[in-house]
């Protein structure tokens, strides 16, 4: 199991039947593949769709039916389409149970940076700022460190923020971290790792939950 798969599988276990969830581009999109059996989750795509299905075969791809990553998708029964201002009314209005997105940096205050590197990258924030400001629960799904081994979980973000104090949870291939008023609290660590090893890979100070446990990624049945 790759680290990314572990992250996706673990987060999928958080879903409840009837959840409405927005998945960011990249790693978070993988989560849709691991929804536990018997759980109905409706995935939203902020370009104007609720009830996003799996990617189509190449022959069935419809240019009028894409997700926010501009990739072709399919319709689930009971899906619906709506305009952009409606889609973001839904997001901003607190109707999404969960928004799961990637990050470049997260910090001890739950600040998130995932949209720009000044002077280097001109892309735009897309819907990320709206999602983190509006969803009931914001989960960051990302690899614990950069390719160079630098920590992405910092005392304070150095890149321009996507949102201020918006992150509720951080999930990496190593651990689950809850963002609390007291700081970052380690609640789960993968088998074969211990708290000291996770802290060594993390710039931010990690508090340890009294209920710390091993991260389990199998679906609950």
């Amino acid at each position, binding site marked *: 199991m790759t680290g990314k798969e572990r992250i996706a599988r673990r987060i999928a276990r958080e879903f409840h039947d009837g959840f409405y969830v927005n998945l960011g581009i990249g790693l978070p999109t993988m989560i849709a593949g691991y929804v536990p059996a018997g759980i109905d989750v409706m995935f939203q*795509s*902020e*370009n*104007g*769709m609720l009830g996003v299905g799996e990617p189509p075969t190449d022959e069935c*791809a*419809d*240019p*009028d*039916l*894409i*997700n*926010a*990553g*501009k*990739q*072709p998708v399919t*319709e689930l029964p009971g899906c619906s*389409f*709506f*305009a*952009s*201002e409606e*889609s*973001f*009314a839904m*997001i*901003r209005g607190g109707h999404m149970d969960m928004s799961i997105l990637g990050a470049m940096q997260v910090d001890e205050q739950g*600040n998130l940076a995932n949209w720009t590197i000044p*002077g280097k*990258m*001109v*892309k*735009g*924030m*897309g*819907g*990320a*700022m*709206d999602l983190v*400001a*509006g969803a009931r629960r914001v989960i960051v799904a990302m690899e614990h460190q950069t390719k160079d081994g630098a920590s992405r979980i910092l005392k304070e973000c150095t890149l*321009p*923020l*996507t*949102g*201020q*104090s918006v992150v509720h949870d951080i999930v990496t291939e190593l651990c689950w971290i809850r963002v609390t008023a007291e700081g970052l609290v380690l609640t789960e660590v993968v088998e074969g790792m211990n708290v000291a090893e996770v802290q060594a890979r993390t710039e931010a100070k990690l508090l340890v939950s009294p209920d710390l446990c091993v991260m389990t990624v199998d679906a609950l049945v």
Partner: protein
Amino acid sequence: MNKVVPTADDAVVDIAPGSTIMLGGFGLCGIPENLIAALVKRRITGLHTISNNMGVDGFGMGLMLEAGMIASHIGSYVGENRRLEALVLKGELDLTLIPQGTLAERIRAGGAGIPAFYVPTGLGTVVAEGKETRKIGDRTYVLEQALHADVALIKAWKGDRLGNLVYRKTARNFNPAMAAAAKVTIAEVEVLVEPGELDPDHIVTPGIYVNRIVVGAAYRKPIESKFIQSGGAL
């Protein structure tokens, strides 16, 4: 009442250089590709564009950029257009990036007679810099202003000669909000039907918002993720 014009060229014939133009679409999905092509033929310059994206190199608004027609742009994501990135980093194009939901709501507000409104989005980030903030209840919000345009170029699936429009799947996106926010709204459709053929309960954009309607001569509708992978060779 007949808002049909014969060709996309006729539809855009009087758009002036320096105009502010809204363009519907999300990525390459639901963009007014025939109207853009007609506008590119006219090569008018100094345009101020408002659109979620900026097409890609070689298609959609990317063609306007290549023709040097755009002076400034307001959008939420332009990551698929390498030419734009270069122009902006060189300081040759004035780019304003704003959150996608704020963009959509500012356009809606423009059409709805709401000059300004508060949102939680972007508080404590660069998008709130220089903007008024205000505590309402137990949260702090950012004041955002309505967006307006001289012209909106939009794309729908079907329409009638009164300008009533319906959209197909995720090709709806920014088109309905923009239809209401411009002085002149020009819609291109794939299919023109008779008034009464569209179920009045299904009409998304009532004709009151549409000044001109044209049937697009041809639709390429490339899928962006594949278009980019194949280097625009579709």
